[in-house]
């Protein structure tokens, strides 16, 4: 739903970094996307193809590394992955839970030439 603007950001960041590295073409952009982050890789890919046109990012491959949700119990510090929608600690049953991984949304690296 809101992937247009973020894809624009991806193209801008990638093109600027390629310029800094004096690269003429971006081959691949490696993105890290958390499972809980509200961004859909297919939508990003869709917008990327048109937004990257006539830039050094045109034709680049987008590679998404998806980070599964990881939770931490505030009561007993157990790290776990949610089994269902209600977050509760598998060890002590506490529902005081914090999200430790799964909101990532960044460009990790790029392959350029």
């Amino acid at each position, binding site marked *: 739903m*809101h992937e247009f603007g973020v894809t624009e950001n991806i193209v801008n960041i990638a093109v600027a970094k390629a310029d800094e590295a004096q690269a003429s073409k971006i081959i691949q952009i490696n993105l890290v996307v958390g499972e809980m982050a509200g961004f859909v890789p297919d939508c990003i890919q869709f917008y990327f193809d048109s937004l990257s046109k006539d830039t050094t990012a045109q034709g680049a491959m987008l590679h998404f590394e998806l980070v599964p949700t990881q939770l931490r119990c505030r009561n007993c510090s157990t790290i776990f992955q949610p089994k269902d929608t209600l977050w509760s600690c598998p060890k002590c049953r506490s529902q005081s839970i914090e999200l430790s991984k799964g909101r990532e949304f960044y460009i990790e690296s790029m392959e350029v030439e």
Partner: protein
Amino acid sequence: MKKIEVIQNILEANETIARRNQRLLDGHNVFAINIMSSPGAGKTSLIQQILTRLKGRLNIAVIEGDVASTVDAEKVQSDAKAVIQINTRNMPESCSLMAAMIESALKDIPLDDIDLLLIENVGNLICPSEFTLGEHKRVVISSLPEGDDKPIKYPLIFIDADAVIINKMDLLSYVDFDIAAFRHCVAGLNPKAEIFELSCKTDEGIERWCSWILAKVKSNATKQ
């Protein structure tokens, strides 16, 4: 071919503008609240209540975010010092307000004459959780007819909230909403969030909620 390390947050562009918005607001001593909920939970009613209750005590401006129409802006027009309607329909993102939209709306608000800025986000429990606007506090409203499972289904927006409002308390005897279960779930996700039970229809709980706003505005003003 070579590999270059980037490690750059993709939402940084929005966050940079949000920080700029907050600096501008702080420079004019304006406290901003971002109000989020699903459509129909009572964002506009809550704003109307705040305007009525705090009239004469605070000068309030409102930014209304909607996909289309000016109906909400018209509802709050009479009591607000300034009202700006943002329609997101023709913008690249229509599902949430973004910092850049607020930056441009702030140009039309007489910031020196304002103490409090209420920002009504687009009715949506998903997208607004990804975008900060420059607000000082984030408020999420859940209303009884929606059911008590919203924090389970949409945890992110509750994780980042400073206050959570349970609205439409006047309907408690008509709907199956387990207040204790809702509170337990919100507290589990976000122990720092303050929870308010109220009804914009009957005024129940409004006084306590407005006291919270007044206290926050005051403590922010002393900080400047």
